[in-house]
């Protein structure tokens, strides 16, 4: 027990954990029936379960975003990649739908419907990675290109229509249950275990943190920062692709305009709330907790009858608050004001070095 409490990773997620408990307590008192759970057709249902179920795509995107964020980058294109991967999957199932043909033709095999969109998503991630790692374009601009152009590509694939489909095996990915758990949640667990193994049981995690916190030092240590960055963007793209498939399979349709819209904020918010530093240490469990917090905020606000678009305001405020609390200058200012010490020289050090 003592070992767990003194654990570095545990200390980092303490803040988010407290925030999560606070939201849950709010719901316990103010949202009637929030913790009510029912078993329908052998599956769990209820607002609380919904947090994990609905939050699964954000969690998966956020896992990929964590790695990118830790290398000192950011990926704004995740929402668009989600839309593209969903559009590709739907297009494969009903290739003639955009031409007005209602018939399905022969259904492609399931593994193709899943693998090819993931491949496309991976290629898009690779594109981001090449722009950032090899052409040295700032991550924000490099991924902004795909954020805007990507939605255009998704619309191009669906020809501006919403491709709806019936493909039970594929839908299983979004709304199925396995061993009583939603498949999407199982996918989150699989991804988490996989990434945790890759980053914590091999040196990859340390490489990522090293490249993020001090690129020059990592270069002299002989770490190939380009490959590390390339990998993180590639992986983030695949994560976004998977999330796109889950969303598309869940609603049985590819909506190029709305699939994955605003997911970049949710993913970035999850990463920041979880305590990952921009260019530096990351924690996957913190990110997971961050995603759960974001989703519980969404579910809480939705259950109070607020329009989904307006939730953006609350999320933005939460992200800003957490960022400010984490900012070292903010902490210094608080310390300064408490101890009334004149530390002017310290303040100038941090000027403009962001």
């Amino acid at each position, binding site marked *: 027990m003592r070992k767990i409490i003194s654990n570095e990773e545990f200390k980092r997620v303490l803040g988010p954990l407290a925030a999560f408990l606070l939201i849950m307590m709010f719901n316990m008192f103010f949202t009637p029936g929030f913790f009510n759970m029912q078993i329908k057709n052998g599956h769990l249902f209820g607002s609380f379960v919904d947090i994990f179920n609905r939050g699964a795509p954000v969690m998966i995107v956020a896992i990929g975003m964590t790695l990118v964020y830790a290398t000192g980058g950011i990926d704004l294109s995740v929402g668009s990649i989600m839309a593209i991967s969903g559009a590709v999957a739907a297009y494969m199932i009903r290739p003639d739908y955009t031409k007005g043909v209602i018939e399905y033709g022969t259904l492609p095999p399931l593994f193709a419907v899943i693998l090819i969109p993931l491949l496309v998503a991976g290629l898009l991630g690779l594109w981001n990675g090449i722009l950032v790692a090899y052409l040295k374009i700032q991550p924000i601009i490099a991924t902004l290109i795909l954020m805007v152009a990507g939605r255009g590509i998704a619309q191009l694939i669906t020809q501006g229509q919403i491709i709806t489909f019936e493909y039970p095996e594929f839908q299983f990915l979004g709304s199925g249950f396995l061993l009583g758990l939603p498949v999407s949640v199982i996918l989150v667990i699989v991804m988490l275990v996989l990434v945790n193994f890759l980053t914590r049981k091999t040196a990859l995690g340390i490489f990522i943190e090293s490249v993020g916190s001090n690129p020059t030092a990592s270069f002299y240590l002989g770490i190939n920062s380009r490959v590390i960055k390339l990998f993180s963007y590639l992986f983030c793209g695949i994560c976004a692709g998977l999330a796109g498939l889950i969303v598309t399979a869940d609603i049985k349709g590819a909506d190029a305009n709305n699939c994955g819209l605003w997911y970049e904020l949710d993913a970035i918010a999850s990463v920041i709330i979880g305590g990952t530093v921009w260019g530096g240490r990351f924690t996957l469990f913190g990110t997971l907790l961050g995603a759960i917090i974001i989703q519980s905020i969404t579910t809480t606000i939705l259950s109070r009858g607020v329009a989904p678009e*307006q939730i953006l305001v609350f999320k933005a405020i939460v992200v800003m608050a957490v960022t400010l609390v984490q900012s070292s200058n903010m902490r210094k200012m608080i310390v300064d004001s408490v101890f009334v010490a004149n530390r002017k020289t310290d303040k100038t050090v941090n000027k403009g070095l962001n």
Partner: protein
Amino acid sequence: MELKTIKNYIPLFATIFVFILIYTMGAMLYDNFLSLRVFLNLFLDNAFVGVIAVGMTFVILSGGIDLSVGSVVAFVCILSAKLLEVYQINPFLVVLVCLLFGVFLGTVMGAVIHFFAVPDFLVTLVGMFLCRGLAYMVDLQSIPIRDELFLAVNTMGINFGGGVNFRLISIIFIMVWAAGVYVSHYTRFGRNIYALGGDVVSANLMGIPIGKTRILVYTMSSTLAALGGLLYAVYTLSGYAAAAQGLELDAIAAVVIGGTLLTGGVGFVEGTMVGVLILGLIQTFISFQGTLSSWWTNIIIGLLIFSFILLQRFLSLRSDTDQK
């Protein structure tokens, strides 16, 4: 030294070349492409993008980025419509409120970036989502504007006869751009921005007020975005919370295509005008072509911005030593 100065101008020349190229292509392919009306419409249709791009030029010159502009436009646009049509508030007051919102937001974002050393993209990304959410809070539906002043500004202009009208909206855009050119070349503030974008540490050591400059740059950008929002409201005569999505990329594209280096410190407000006109030309081209769908605009702008960044990369002297 001399070579470096020439290098700074190469992207601008490339931009002008691309502009002439697209224009010639359009003129050869389509009958009325070369008319005065089409040319003047370039200024009208892109007035709001242009005003925002001028502000964005200063932000990028200072080494920063402002992602919030598109959402500010949407918020100001729907806010003005709501205040005018639902609450029947005096239009001049509405304009003042909207501009003050821009001043306030920009100053707050700039202050957070400077004093708390939070990355600029993060702060302005939060601003982007905040304003979009606020816009939806004002109203989920679109509101038509029937206010007399806004209607008057919409139609006002210098008439050239034959339906050719140089509208006030375009004139405001050109005035803002001219003011931007003046500020960048002939004021201390303008030179401070270049110094800040060139090298923060040296600028600080030279005694340039980097805090004041940086905050003012964001104040200016958000205020111009608010002005852009008002122009958008006047131009479309309606307010809609989902309007102007992806506008931040258009503005950034105009700046980059205009020859300003994304790393800051190098570039011209003059070029931004050409960048805006190129974006406008592409849209005109697509509407003349007729069969291309609207999403092609996004894809082509993405490709164009990519190729100009690539050009910058090859020209940039820093790239060889930069290990980041």
